[in-house]
């Protein structure tokens, strides 16, 4: 096994054994699993309780199959009025001619009652009316709610995972530099092997996290029945998320490692990383905005601009249908950006990581022979 893989393996085995890794993995799995049940809890179908006094039940179920109706009959108007005022029933149909409610009737219920009443009367008079055929000539919006929900969860997961893993890379770099372990390490491995191994190792941990989240989310969706609302092409969305995570992580982790190699103390990490943290935050905000307006100009343009595309494009892919060529073009640009940052990061790291003491200036590193 070469040096890089040994370094990667050490990162994985030491992290995976820590209590914080296990706990945070469990917590995210539970939270994401619970989110899959959320639509069921909050989006319960409407239901109405309707009373009758001396009336036939109207065929409301046939007119609105998504709504549940419960019928009760009352002996007289007085009993019905009491039930309405107590809130036991939403409305009472009296003598097939009037409706009692407490205050104004809910619009939806009022319209339903009126139209079914009319239809029943007309039907009794022998008039048959063919129902209107509904047809959408715009985009398929059946899955819009599910798509937006998935995209929102995705933004949060990508943001937290990328930022979290990148910070781990940065802290690891400074740990080795500050404690001078790097002096021993670099007498046996090359700087790029050390950098690459660390980025790969913590990336694998990120993928383990992401995989667990996806499995928990999708599994819980099937358990809760939310999976029935999954938009078509869900497999592509999941695969896309994995690829975009790898690209985004590779970019930010390499940049983070390069910046972190400029300082020697953990206290300075936050400071030296702040330009990059801001970059991730910016990507996060645009990606969040894209969940609500995935076809808008801002989201569309930014979904092509590396490194923001690594967070915005997967969110657009979840929130709406993105043509394949757009995804491919954006991914191609991102791959180029990753290659460029790898070259840049390896150079900065190699030149800065042995210069312990005061913070090394980036310009100085780039100018050095």
């Amino acid at each position: 096994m070469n040096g890089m893989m040994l370094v990667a393996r050490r990162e994985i085995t030491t992290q995976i054994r820590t209590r914080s890794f296990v706990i945070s993995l469990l917590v995210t799995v539970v939270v994401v699993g619970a989110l899959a049940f959320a639509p069921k809890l909050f989006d319960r179908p409407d239901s109405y309780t309707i009373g009758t006094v001396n009336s036939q039940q109207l065929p409301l179920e046939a007119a609105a199959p998504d709504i549940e109706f419960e019928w009760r009959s009352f002996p007289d108007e007085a009993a019905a009025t009491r039930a309405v005022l107590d809130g036991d029933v939403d409305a009472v149909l009296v003598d097939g001619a009037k409706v009692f409610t407490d205050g104004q009737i809910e619009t939806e219920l009022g319209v339903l009652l009126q139209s079914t009443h009319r239809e029943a009367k007309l039907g009794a008079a022998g008039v048959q009316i063919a129902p209107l055929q509904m047809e959408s000539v715009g985009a398929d919006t059946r899955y819009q709610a599910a798509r937006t929900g998935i995209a929102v969860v995705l933004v949060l997961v990508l943001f937290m995972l990328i930022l979290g893993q990148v910070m781990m890379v940065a802290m690891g770099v400074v740990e080795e530099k500050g404690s001078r372990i790097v002096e021993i390490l670099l007498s046996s491995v090359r700087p790029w092997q050390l950098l690459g191994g660390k980025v790969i190792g913590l990336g694998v941990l990120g993928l383990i996290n992401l995989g667990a989240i996806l499995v928990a989310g999708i599994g819980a969706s099937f358990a809760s029945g939310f999976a029935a609302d999954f938009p078509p092409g869900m497999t592509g969305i999941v695969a896309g998320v994995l690829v975009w995570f790898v690209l985004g992580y590779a970019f930010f982790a390499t940049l983070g490692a390069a910046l972190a190699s400029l300082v020697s103390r953990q206290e300075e990490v936050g400071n030296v990383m702040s330009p990059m943290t801001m970059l991730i935050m910016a990507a996060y905000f645009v990606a969040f905005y894209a969940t609500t307006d995935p076809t808008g100009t801002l989201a569309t343009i930014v979904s092509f601009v590396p490194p923001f595309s690594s967070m915005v494009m997967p969110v657009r892919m979840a929130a709406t249908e993105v043509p394949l060529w757009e995804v491919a073009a954006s991914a191609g640009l991102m791959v180029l950006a990753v290659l460029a940052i790898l070259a840049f990061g390896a150079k900065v790291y190699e030149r800065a990581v042995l210069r312990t003491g005061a913070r090394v200036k980036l310009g100085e590193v780039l100018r050095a022979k």
Partner: protein
Amino acid sequence: MLEISGLRKRFAGGPGAPEGKQALDGIGFTVRPGEMFGFVGANGAGKSTTMRIVMGVLKADAGTVSWRGEPMTHADRQRFGYMPEERGLYQKMRAGEQIEYFGRLHGMSQANAKKATEDLLERLSLTDRRNSSVESLSLGNQQRVQLAVALVHDPELLILDEPFSGLDPIAVDALATVLQERCRGGVPVIFSSHQLELVERLCDSVGIVSAGRMVASGTVDELRAAEGGMLRVVVRDPAPGWADGLPGQVDVQGNRHVLVTEDGDDQDILRRAIKAGHVEHFGVEQPTLTEIFKEAVA
């Protein structure tokens, strides 16, 4: 054989020291197989800088480092053992795993790294600490782990920056024994230390460095010979003025006179002393390494 010649290194100035510092000013020396080389010098004399250049941690401005007659390469250094001045270990990693990890980084197979780790843990009395994280170990034990990291891959050359600092006498002996063994096996060992008695006891040869230059080097005996012994004569109840005209200094301690001198005819001095009183002591005293060191860097 490790040959170092004409190393020069200048550190750029910064705030507080705008003119920078010439850390190495043409230092050079040679360490033969099986030789234990003690590197002594005041703080800031350039010992660590030299070692860091040999290990490739720093680049020299000028000069060469060669190993077995060839310019030293990264592949060579992979077979060296190095203990930096500022100790570096993964605090949260277990002691045994850490030693094994460095063994593997140096290219050992898993089985060999494991075996070497077990051996070292036993040699350094750390077997029961194998699964403790480094941060939970005492400083002395951390130092032993650090040494094990430098030794695990059976290095061809050992470069140890202050390996004895902070160790108790028992740990010093344990470490010294391990180093002597490696040395007898033909490995050149270079270590720096401020404990000059220890250097004198352990080392085949010594290099004294001052202001980035090697001011004296050779075996301890050679250094002594170069420095020369001091004649010390103790006379009880001598006649006053007995030593008038003799070289050196007379120190009066009660009824004893102590004469210490570097030059003069020792036989003449002895005759004068016998005539003057009762000679209690007459002999040439070898300078200690401490005296040689103070003389050399003065």
